[in-house]
């Protein structure tokens, strides 16, 4: 009917077509209500006949409406059992018909069906629903070459939702869907279309929500490949979604290769991506981002010391690529995570003689030294000083006198050369005094050197009252209450 008649009568024709459409729709509806139409009759007689009519009418508006109608009025169990027949009709429809919407609707209906009635899940397996849908979508995308990316991705989102509901344990199916999506996206540059981007974010978020454990999502080999097609800012958004999922579910990620995979996904937050400008982002947002990464570091843990050391090295490798803006946020987290490991190693009973144990406090202190040194490029002397002092205390507890002394030396260098602000100096010198007061590992010479240096600096603070306070605090350095400490009344 659409092809007949001149243009000015188009509106009148349109109205007539709509009325006809409603009429046919009503008929279908009535048909579905007839009690005698059971599954077999539907399968053998009703559906093939209807589909024949639909295909033959060659009217794209009608075809769309009628397919939609069929899916709506007949029960989901019927659709499941006639899937092959139903899907085979699609390629026969007119090229302009919005097949993807109809397909998506069908998948969504069946997804809901699976979600509400889990007892029918075996049926899905029996009719090989996933394979059929996969193929159908593949064929549709192939046939409609001009389909915009957003359309294809929407289809994959529907298929993924379907897969996650019907076959949640089949990670390979999920990966397959992602893989098909990658194939469709390949050849394009990074996505600019915001609707398509939104759909990809939905695509990637679905497995995270379904499997509250991010580690499962990390096993999907095509996941990072899909992410590669997002533009820089969306990659960051997605990375934050991933981190939030980890924090919400307090997922602990415990091996270094999973962490590698994770850091690959969140690389947009860890370092500057190619082409990204350094000051692209709002200050507040940047801080929030980096604080998220800092928090994430605390979720990376393994009780096994060797593995934990590997984890620390992996994290260090990645965050050191972050550049001066990111280091002040990420370095402290790594440092404290490492210090926790040092403490656990301390608590261990004795060394097994002859065995080469890779994870030793000394090794970790080396890593710590490297990491804190990186802060000099920011520069962040006050933070670095505090971290050196923390390490010194930890080294003290591990009986590593030279290491502790080295950390103090570094702290003093920072104090002498980098910390010029008088208020900062006051705080810094008190921290040095407080830390040094607790050191019990230094021999007389070392202790004397450090004490004299500290007292000297205290006396040189800017204002007299501050000098006094610092110097009397230093008095504690000359008298220790430890049982085996030095009680030198003369001093």
């Amino acid at each position, binding site marked *: 009917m659409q092809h007949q008649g001149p243009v000015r009568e188009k509106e009148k024709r349109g109205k007539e077509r709509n009325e006809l459409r409603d009429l046919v729709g009503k008929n279908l509806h009535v048909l579905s209500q007839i009690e005698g139409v059971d599954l077999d009759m539907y399968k053998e007689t009703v559906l093939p006949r209807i589909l024949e009519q639909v295909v033959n009418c060659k009217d794209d508006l009608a075809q769309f409406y009628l397919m939609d109608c069929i899916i709506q009025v007949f029960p989901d169990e019927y659709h499941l059992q006639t899937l092959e027949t139903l899907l085979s009709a699609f390629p026969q429809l007119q090229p302009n018909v919005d097949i993807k919407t109809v397909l998506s609707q069908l998948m969504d209906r069946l997804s809901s069906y699976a979600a509400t009635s889990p007892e029918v899940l075996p049926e899905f397996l029996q009719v090989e629903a996933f394979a059929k849908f996969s193929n159908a979508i593949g064929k549709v995308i192939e046939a409609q070459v001009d389909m915009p990316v957003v359309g294809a991705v929407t289809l994959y989102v529907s298929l993924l939702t379907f897969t996650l509901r019907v076959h949640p344990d089949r990670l390979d199916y999920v990966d397959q869907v992602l893989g098909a999506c990658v194939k469709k996206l390949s050849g394009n540059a990074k996505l600019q279309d915001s609707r398509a981007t939104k759909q990809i974010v939905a695509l990637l978020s679905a497995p995270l929500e379904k499997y509250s454990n991010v580690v499962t999502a990390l096993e999907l080999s095509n996941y990072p490949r899909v992410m590669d097609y997002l533009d820089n800012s969306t990659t960051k958004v997605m990375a934050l979604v991933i981190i939030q999922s980890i924090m919400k579910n307090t997922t602990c990620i415990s091996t270094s290769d999973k962490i590698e995979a994770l850091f690959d996904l969140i690389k947009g937050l860890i370092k500057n991506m190619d082409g990204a400008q350094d000051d692209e982002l709002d200050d507040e947002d940047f801080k929030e981002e980096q604080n998220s990464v800092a928090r994430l570091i*605390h979720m990376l843990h393994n009780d096994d010391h060797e593995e934990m050391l590997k984890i620390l090295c992996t994290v260090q490798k990645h965050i050191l690529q972050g550049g001066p803006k990111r280091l002040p946020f990420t370095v402290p987290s790594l440092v*404290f995570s490492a210090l926790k490991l040092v403490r656990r190693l301390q608590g261990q009973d004795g060394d097994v003689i002859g065995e080469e144990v890779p994870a030793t406090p000394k090794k970790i202190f080396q890593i710590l030294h490297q990491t804190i040194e990186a802060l000099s490029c920011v520069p962040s002397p006050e933070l670095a000083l505090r971290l050196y002092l923390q390490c010194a205390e930890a080294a003290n507890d591990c009986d590593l006198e030279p290491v502790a002394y080295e950390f103090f030396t570094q702290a003093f260098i920072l104090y002498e050369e980098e910390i010029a602000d008088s208020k900062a100096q006051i705080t810094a010198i*008190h921290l040095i005094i407080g830390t040094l007061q607790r050191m019990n590992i230094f021999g007389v010479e070392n202790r004397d050197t450090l004490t004299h240096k500290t007292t000297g600096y205290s006396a040189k603070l800017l204002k007299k009252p501050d000098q006094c306070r610092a110097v009397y605090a230093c008095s504690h350095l000359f008298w220790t209450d430890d049982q085996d400490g030095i009680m030198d009344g003369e001093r």
Partner: protein
Amino acid sequence: MVLVLALGDLHVPHRAADLPAKFKSMLVPGKIQHIICTGNLCVKEVHDYLKSLCPDLHITRGEYDEDARYPETKTLTIGQFKLGLCHGHQVVPWGDLDSLAMLQRQLDVDILVTGHTHQFKAYKHEGGVVINPGSATGAYSSVTYDVNPSFVLMDIDGLRVVVYVYELIDGEVKVDKIDFKKTATMLHS
């Protein structure tokens, strides 16, 4: 009955990801009249969170705090009590009772709340009370090993203050309480 929440040394995000979930579910907005925080939050997000629990928020500066504008010490009067607040890294030796008592006399307060050692402490000392609410997140401390997350809730009622300490030990919240009464000798002119 005035409820004052005392907590500090959260060290978010440097040493801890967040407050323990069990604490978060207990700390509901609208129940507490004042919050005093010893410092080392360390970031604005934590400040905003505490502010959402109670608008009357007092914070002193810890050595890792992002916001440099917090004061080194603070005093405030709640009911019949004068409270003093300081992070504690400024008082050497760290955690030393006599040195803290010096600070208490200097600030001229009945109750001194400090942190830094991440270890809960509450005792009477020389006519006053010294409280350390510990670390609310159980953050690593060079001073204290095996830190359990803890915070303190003070119930100030006339001349009496009941100090409730909440500690998270092996996944369970344990509560303890200590009573202090302000005697005539403590009353300042």
